[in-house]
């Protein structure tokens, strides 16, 4: 059963999406601000929804896939808000918010009632920080993925001189490229910190830093490919569309890590 808070979160995100689409159409600063305000409202309400979920479970809210997905959606919204403020661009929101809304809807309507804490050792501030920071990294990579796709689509239209009606509302190619790189920088920094915290936590729990879990290997691989992207995206031969294609490709490692590795390969990292 969904709570009032869950419905409020969805209502805020849906309203923000609608208003941002309207903004794309009208280019009105007032409407854009309204959309941002709704998104900020959704982020605040979502925070309290996660808190309430955590209390109901008696531990971190992401011990199941749905909780993890909800936290991912929240961090995606938070990261987007940060990037929007930093680059002063709102036109990307209509392409990011459907993901936020979709993940929130899945975690709201399909999640079973929160059971009590399932993993006795999965608690404590260090663990919570480790998971949150890693999911923040995934959210930042997801944002760079969406922005890169937008870049590639717009680049294609501009090069082929096939301009539709919406293109004039999109951010400039250079801005999209910078937004994508900013997101990846946030992601790489967060993932590095998150992995380091993970090793520390493993050492505290098991007495050694490396457990040999496939998630550790794939996380390091994700870090490596995104670091490579950051390096190449500044090089002359890779600047522009090539860097964005690489960014899109890198995200498949994240999807692999979040789905196949979590569900089938990892023993410690079931849902995050």
């Amino acid at each position, binding site marked *: 059963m969904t709570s009032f808070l869950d419905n409020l979160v969805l209502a805020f995100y849906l309203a923000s999406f609608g208003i941002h689409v309207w903004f794309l159409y009208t*280019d009105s600063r007032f409407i854009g601000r309204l959309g941002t305000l709704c998104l900020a409202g959704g982020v605040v309400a979502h925070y309290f929804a996660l808190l309430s979920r955590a209390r109901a479970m008696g531990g971190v809210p992401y011990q199941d896939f749905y909780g993890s997905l909800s936290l991912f959606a929240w961090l995606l919204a938070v990261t987007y808000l940060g990037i929007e403020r930093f680059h002063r661009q709102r036109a990307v929101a209509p392409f990011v918010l459907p993901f936020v809304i979709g993940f929130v809807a899945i975690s709201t309507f399909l999640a079973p009632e929160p059971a009590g804490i399932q993993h006795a050792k999965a608690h404590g501030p260090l663990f919570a920080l480790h998971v949150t920071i890693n999911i923040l990294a995934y959210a930042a990579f997801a944002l760079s993925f969406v922005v890169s796709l937008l870049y590639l689509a717009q680049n294609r239209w501009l*090069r082929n*001189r096939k*301009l539709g*009606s919406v293109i004039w509302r999109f951010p*400039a*190619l250079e801005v999209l490229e910078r937004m994508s790189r900013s997101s990846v920088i946030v992601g790489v920094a967060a993932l590095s910190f998150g992995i380091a915290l993970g090793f520390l936590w493993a050492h505290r729990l098991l007495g050694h830093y490396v457990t040999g879990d496939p998630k550790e290997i794939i996380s390091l691989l994700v870090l490596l490919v995104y670091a490579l992207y950051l390096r190449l995206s500044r090089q002359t031969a890779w600047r*522009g569309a090539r860097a964005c294609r690489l960014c899109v490709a890198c995200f498949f490692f994240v999807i692999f890590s979040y789905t196949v590795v979590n569900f089938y390969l990892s023993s410690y990292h079931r849902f995050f």
Partner: protein
Amino acid sequence: MARSHSNPANGVQPRASGDAAMHIILIGVNHRTAPIELRERVAFSVENARRAAQQLRASGVVGEVVVVSTCNRSELYGVFGRDAEGAAAALDDFITAFHGLPAGSLNGALYHHHDHDAVRHLFRVASGLDSMLLGEAEILGQVRQAYMVAFENGDTGPVLNRLFQGALEIGKRVRTETEIGTRPMSAAFAAVKLAEQIFGKLRNHKGLILGAGAMGEQLVEHLRDRGMTSIYVANRSRERGEELARRVSGEAFSWEDLPRALELPDIVVASVGGNDPVLTRSMLERAMGARGNRALFVIDLGVPRNVEPAVADLYNVFLYSMDDLTEIVEQNKHARAKEVPRAEALISEQLEKFKVWQASARSVALLAELREKLQHNREEFLRQHMDEMEHLAPEDRERVARLTAELLDNILEQPASRLRSEKELRRKLEEIEAVRHLFGLEENKP
């Protein structure tokens, strides 16, 4: 009357004025009715607009007046009494005499609109639907300025305040709720918009203009307007190139230095005469390598083309020819035209709002007149009959007077209250002249 000189858009409250001064008239010429030579002769500078409005109000032809004058139109909006034909003729004579034109020289060029037709016309003008370039943005600013001048000068009253505030509101609304003004409508502006779509703000970007033609210079001016500061010029004739560089505050390169010049800019505008391309694929391939593959926007304004088409295949190069830009403009024209019905629907909505306000203002004025007339009749009646009733004590006389006054209030209370609260009733009373005639109210008016 004391008048606030604050921004009128911030809320001049409409008040009722007598119906005798509630009719709107518009006379004007525009690009459809008069050639540019004639439009130039009847244009009003700001000072002339002030003077004309002052003279018109002093003559008593109109009670309120706003003069809208742009390069494509000169229009006088006025509020007059009941003689529409007389007002139109007087305004025709005035505009002709004011500009020192021979009588009758504007015959056929002047158009007249009254009341709701005039309102709709202004709403269409403010929305850019009556412009030569459909949906152009400048006209809204020009209407605002014309209104501000008239307002500051004390030439507007409740009717024109309401009308122009409505026009500014609908002009803005049409631009935000439709796509009538979003797309570039000239090749030069399309090129600038494309540049912004690739680079964002042009402040820190550089441009290179090849050739010293007028079209290239015009485009560079547009780019400079959008913040581009570094401009290079390369021309076959060194002198003409340097001359153009001086005009656009740029730096001149000799034609032989073209390969080196190509390494610098983000935008290249080619506008060179001749049959052979001046920019080849190999030249730009070298330049792109030297400039680290940063995006390059090449605008080829030459006919025949100045840039080899194969340049478009180079990585991070965006090549647009004159045909491409023209096609964008054509697409945009069609797209804007498709938005016209939506804009017209918004205008009709705004017109309805204005009609309701006008009917309301007229109703209130009518009630005030009716009350005044009945009050006068009551006093007359009491004066005649009180003399015959000598037996009445002074306090009884006073009581009779009070009772008749209360009776009058009771009679008028219900219609006044219904007019205040029922929008539909106010709308139905639009043709209020009949009511005025019913009560014989026009007899006392000039």
